[in-house]
């Protein structure tokens, strides 16, 4: 009996050693999961105001251009919310004053609360739509791509470390836990120093490269933020360009901005 117990103990030891090695894919580097957590915890401010110019181009070269203002506030789990955002349309002229409010839920399974104000209809309408795999504002990104995705929703593996002009990049493979998710995996290039992500590749359920997202970053008030995002859908040829400017952090945005009432008033 004793020997059996010994053998079991030895087996457990070997097993834990193996799983330890599995957790830390490259010796001397943090594990994939650890990197994902670090990226998730990267400082992004308490609130933010920014302007954006959206250029959507389809495969036939036709474009839609929109100019928006965005107000964003981090809720960090308060009231079960992760964040609230308010988007105001500056142009094109026929949709000016259209506003869009989103309360993002902390729980990945729960539906976000959304409202839209259409000035020509003169009504605020609540939109009950839960699908986080839906396109974000008609772009090539889905809601899930826009952050708010929890670390636990994927398993992360550090594939390799790359050097790009003296910058150290982690290449992370994130595979969704949930079956039948829109992506079969993501490859993420992560700047080891700033923890920003200059490039993400999305693979569809049939294993084909679906989208490539490239991002330029800038540091404002010690916070790294998007300056320009380009997403190219490799299957449809559709392209989204998002140019972000006038970024201001920690402006002490009031809660009243993120309410139905403020939707009618337009930009605060």
């Amino acid at each position, binding site marked *: 009996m004793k020997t059996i117990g010994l053998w079991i103990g030895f087996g457990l030891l070997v097993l834990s050693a193996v799983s330890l090695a599995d957790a830390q894919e490259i010796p001397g580097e943090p594990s994939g999961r650890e990197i994902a957590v670090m990226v998730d915890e990267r400082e992004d401010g308490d609130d933010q105001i920014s302007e954006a110019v959206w250029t959507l181009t389809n495969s036939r070269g036709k474009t839609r251009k929109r100019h928006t203002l965005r107000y964003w506030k981090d809720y960090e789990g308060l009231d079960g919310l992760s964040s609230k955002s308010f988007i105001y349309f500056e142009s094109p002229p026929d949709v000016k004053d259209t506003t869009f409010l989103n309360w993002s839920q902390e729980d990945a399974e729960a539906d976000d609360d959304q409202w839209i104000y259409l000035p020509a209809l003169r009504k605020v309408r609540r*939109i009950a739509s839960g699908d986080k795999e839906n396109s974000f504002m008609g772009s090539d990104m889905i809601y899930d791509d826009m952050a708010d995705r929890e670390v636990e929703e994927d398993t992360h593996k550090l594939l390799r470390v790359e050097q790009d002009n003296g910058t150290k990049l982690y290449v992370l493979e994130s595979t969704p836990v949930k079956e039948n998710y829109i992506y079969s995996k993501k490859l993420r290039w992560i700047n080891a120093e700033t923890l920003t992500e200059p490039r993400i590749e999305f693979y569809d359920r*049939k294993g084909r490269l679906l989208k490539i997202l490239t991002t330029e970053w800038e540091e404002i008030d010690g916070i790294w933020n998007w300056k320009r995002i380009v997403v190219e859908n490799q*299957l449809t040829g559709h392209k989204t360009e998002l140019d972000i400017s006038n970024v201001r952090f920690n402006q002490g945005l009031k809660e009243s901005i993120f309410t139905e009432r403020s939707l009618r008033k337009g930009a605060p």
Partner: protein
Amino acid sequence: MESIFRTIIRFRFLVIAAVLGVTVVAAMQLQYLRFESDAESMIPPNDPVLHYNDVVEERFGMLDLIIVGVLNDNPQENGVFNPRTLGIVKEFSEKIALLPGIKAVRDEDVTSVATMDNITGTSDGMAVDPFMEEPPRSAEALAALKDALFDNAMFVDWVVSRDGTGLLIMARMESSEGTLEGVARRAAIYRTIRDMIREKEAVGVPEQFHIAGRGAMEVTFSEDGRSDMERFLPLILFIGLGTLYLTYRSLRGVLLPFAVVIISVIWSMGLMAWLRVPMYFISTMMPVTLMAIGVAYGIHILSRYYDEILSQVEPDAETAVMAAMQEMWKPVVFTALTTAAGFLSFLTAAMVPIRYFGVFTSVGVLAAMVVSLTFFPAVLSLLSPTASRSLRNQMNRSRDLAATGWAARTLSSLGRGVARRPLLVWSIAVGTVLICLIGLQRLYVDSSWIDVFHKQSPVRIGDEVLREKFQGTLPIYVAIEGHEPDLLKDPNLLDKLDRLQAAVEQDSIVGGSLSIAEFIKRMHRVMNEDRKEMEVIPDSRDLIAQYLLLYSFSGDPDDFDEVVDYDYQHANVSFFLRSDHSADIERVIDRIQDFAVREFGVEENGGQAGDHDPLTVRFGRWVAGITPTVIGWETKSGFWIGFAGQGYMSNRFSELVVSGQLTSLVTSLLAVFLLTTCMFRSVVAGLINIIPISAVMVFSFGLMGLLGIPLEVGKSMTASMVIGIGIDYTIHFLNKYQLKTRDGLVNPEAITVATMATSGKAIFFNAAVVVGGFLVFLTSNFKPNFYLGAMMALNMGACLLASMTLLPAILNTFKPQFVYGTMPSPAPVMRTDYAVSPLQEKETV
């Protein structure tokens, strides 16, 4: 000529070796023969109407659909609203979304009740929820699902049938991009879905399944085409060999003509392969057609050869062959030239595959001629000159060819009858032609895409069931092409599009329609607390723009591509038809165009439709009285309106084929007239040759008119083939008739009987093989082939009859100079090879 055949016989081994050598070389090329199954190949390059369809499909990102219908009409199970049926639809939708070649990133990209969202208006906004995540189990939940579906008019007849007994799954297929892998991938989609269905059927689920759509058609097309080929060749071999054996009761009589045919098929197909011309669907008819035609030369030569053997007491191989060749080389060359001309007239066709079919069939015909004049006598001269014992006995008894063999006896008495009662022949012929001329007035053009398939074909049944139960499978597109962006935000225009849909949907064959107007109406209702009366186009342009913005948030960026383009400059209104008969399609198009002319106006100087079509199409259209297909016109409302879609294409297609074939009919008639005029060195001869064949044409198309059978692609193709092949009979007959007068016969009855007993017999067997050969097409999986076979068989029979009754009646009545010479008739010229002809003995006695 005599010396040429003497040379051939002297160097017969060399000739045989040369012919076989060329055949081996050609056969080696066959490995490069490629089969082109892409239906696109039938579309003529540079055709403006068909090209415009590509423009519309590309602009609106239209992809081919594969459609699966799941039906359950059991009321005990609440139709399709039970957990099992819904579960199958969910399972299939999810599996199909994952297939390579299906344009789907998510399950939602496949359309079905299991994947779609239900957008409803609520008191304070709108809700977007899936119709079902999992198939509901409780009776209430099932009833709620049913209510939700039927509450939205857009879904009824589309994802669910009006009677609640059918659900559709629709998936878009990526383009094959013309690559072999692409084509194979699309075929694999269909086969995988078929296997999924078979798996369900194997476990005995009560649901019925149907697959339709372009993908299903493509695969069935190539599978059925292959099975046709595999069945045709043995069948025609059997029929051909059987007929020949019954004719000659000798091995050489069977094998030699067939050797000619096989060699000529190898030559022409080898040439095709060498020139890298692919086999098209229509080319599959080529070997069979060549078999039916190519044996003719051998039959006529053999017939004369046996007549010679029977006429001689101690026949000698070389003498018999020489006699046969000397007399037959001319009609063989003539008939081959006219047949080739008939097929060459297919060059006037707009479709590339039809042109190639014409060219390579005429190459095959000429090859058969060459082989019949070289290889054939060379081999024949090697064989001992014997005829079947029973024929020889009969000949010995009667000393008369006309009494030797059942065919000769029957045909001689027919000839006698025709010669004795010319009035009867004339009145029957003239009467038939007159009646059929009336029928000709009633002839109309109607073709159907899906009717190409056999009635029992699963793809045809599937299409019929689905278009009966749902909104229809055949699209017609109306493209609104603005000159600047944002045209489609105009409430006035959207309202007119909405009314256009309502007006056209009045027609019972229009199962449904779709446009941006419908989405705007629906959105307006949803955003106004789901009030029914709000399902109208709002009159604020900005509100429409804001709805469009909201819509652009709701799905993928290219979700709306099929109804409106990215900058709202172009829109597409789709109509779905339940019938694909051109007559129905035309009626719907008329409705659409009437509305468009009335509501949008027509800018002048738009040019006449069909102006740029080739002369051959314009001529044929004029003959048939077909109105040309319009692509579209500049309206007075600030945009161009255009028409496309498969329904529109299939109309254009039949316009091109039918008018092209009518031109080719006229061309081949003209060519045959000129050729026979030259051959017989007489215009009268040319005329006499084309009279019987023209009568057959009137008969064949007139009969169709009388019986109410519409003219379509397959039938229209028979015309020039009938002319090219049928003229052979009159040429052979006329040639023999002429020879008989030159041999000194003066009595029309005697000439007729003598011609019937010899050439008549050969013509009869020749026609029997041709008719039998084309009857093989009756087993085809494709309706056009079936009709083509039936028409060819009927028409060749009619040609046979006309050249044996009408032609002698004409000759006997008018005694044309080119046959009888100037009176008085010349003294009989005794030719060595006829010196002991029993017929002549009899006549001169």
